[in-house]
Structures are given as structure tokens and as C-alpha cells.
């Protein structure tokens, strides 16, 4: 539907350290990032996220996916910093 490289609008939610560093819990964001890995790097540049990409997981529409998955218009995206249950 959209031309190559035209921005896609996605919904982002932030938890824990990412929430603190982004100073927000969620945002609608247009992005030209091709994959979730590229999207995280874009957010790192924007917010100064201290956690490296290598420590990150990503959930899209409440399901874990690979960071190399292409970004889709309308996705609900959550980057998952290292967890600590229990």
C-alpha cells in the first residue's frame, strides 16, 4: 500500500529501563526502519537507550518475534530488556 521507504506508523510501549529512558510509556511513531533491529537502533539514537541491541528481544502484537522480522504498519511493538522474574 505504501511506497518503498515511506514511513509506517507503529505503536510502541516501553517497560522498565526503556520506559525510564524514553520518559514515556507508549507512543505512536512513524518509522522508515526495515526491521525491528533497525527500529531499536533508531530509538537508541533518539532516546539514548543504554542497553545494546544484543540484549534485546522484541514482541510484536504480544508474540515474541525475531529482531530481523520486517516492520509492519500498525504493529504493536514492545522491546523486551533483560527480565527478572521471581
Amino acid at each position, binding site marked *: 500500500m505504501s511506497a518503498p521507504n515511506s514511513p509506517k506508523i507503529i505503536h510502541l510501549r516501553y517497560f*522498565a529501563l526503556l520506559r525510564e529512558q524514553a520518559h514515556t510509556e507508549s507512543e505512536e511513531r512513524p518509522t522508515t526502519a526495515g526491521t525491528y533491529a533497525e527500529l531499536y537502533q533508531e530509538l537508541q539514537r533518539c532516546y539514548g537507550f543504554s542497553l545494546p541491541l544484543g540484549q534485546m528481544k522484541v*514482541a510484536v502484537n504480544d508474540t515474541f518475534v525475531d529482531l530481523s522480522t520486517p516492520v509492519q504498519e500498525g504493529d504493536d511493538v514492545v522491546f*523486551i530488556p533483560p527480565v527478572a522474574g521471581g
Partner: protein
Amino acid sequence: MTICQFSLAAEPLHPAVLSRPLAHLAAGAFVSFEGWVRNHNAGKTVLALEYEVYTTLALKEGERIVATAIERFDLLGAIAYHRYGTLQLGDIAVWVGTTAAHRRQAFAGTAYIIDEIKCRLPIWKKEYYAGAPATWVYCREHRH
């Protein structure tokens, strides 16, 4: 009927109540684990802690962990609860209970569930210390 349940709780956990649905006349063994908020971690004095949770995914992952344990260890039932929000010293942060015909299954099932919860559940822990800045701590084996 096999009980398979994972829940997130905002309020204090009461093990005697939580374990009730596991009563089963074919069960010979019940093993429970409780994670308590300790007063120390990595040499620092802990004052309190806070869990922040990605609810939808945590419930999905939690149920998957409990179901896998039941199948893998032939459990008669398994229940797990995880607290979120602010917790005080001595509070139960997580409770896991499993039943099986024999004890080895119940020990293995309960250990599996807490191991997976610690490193796979999308939940984050911030520890507040005496004389040091609060920190997001994490499981070194973070995975999914």
C-alpha cells in the same frame, strides 16, 4: 482434571489458599516454591522492590511454562502466581505449586517452572537499596 494455571497478583499471596485447587486423591507428592523478597543482593542492603510487568505477554508465557511442565513431568496439576507492583521485605514475590503421583516429578516440575519464570517471563525487577541508587536487576540467562 488437570489444573494448569498462571496468574499475576497485585495483592499479597497466601499459599494455603493458592494450593487448594491442587488437592487430588491420586497425588502422592506436592512441592511448592516461594520466592521471598530478601534484605540483601550482591552485597547491597535491599529496602524494597518493584516489579513491572508486560501483562498480556506475561500471562501467555506463564501459561505456556506451566503447561509445558505438566506435560514434560507428568504432573497432576500446577499453579503459579507472580506479584507485581511494590513489594516489602519478606513478601512472597512468586509462588509455584505442583502435584504428581511421585515426588521426583513434583520436584522437577516446580524447579522447571521457577527457572523459566525467572528468565523468560516479561517482568522486570527494580531493587531499592540503602545508600545506593535503585537498579533494574536481571536474570543472567535472559532468553525466550
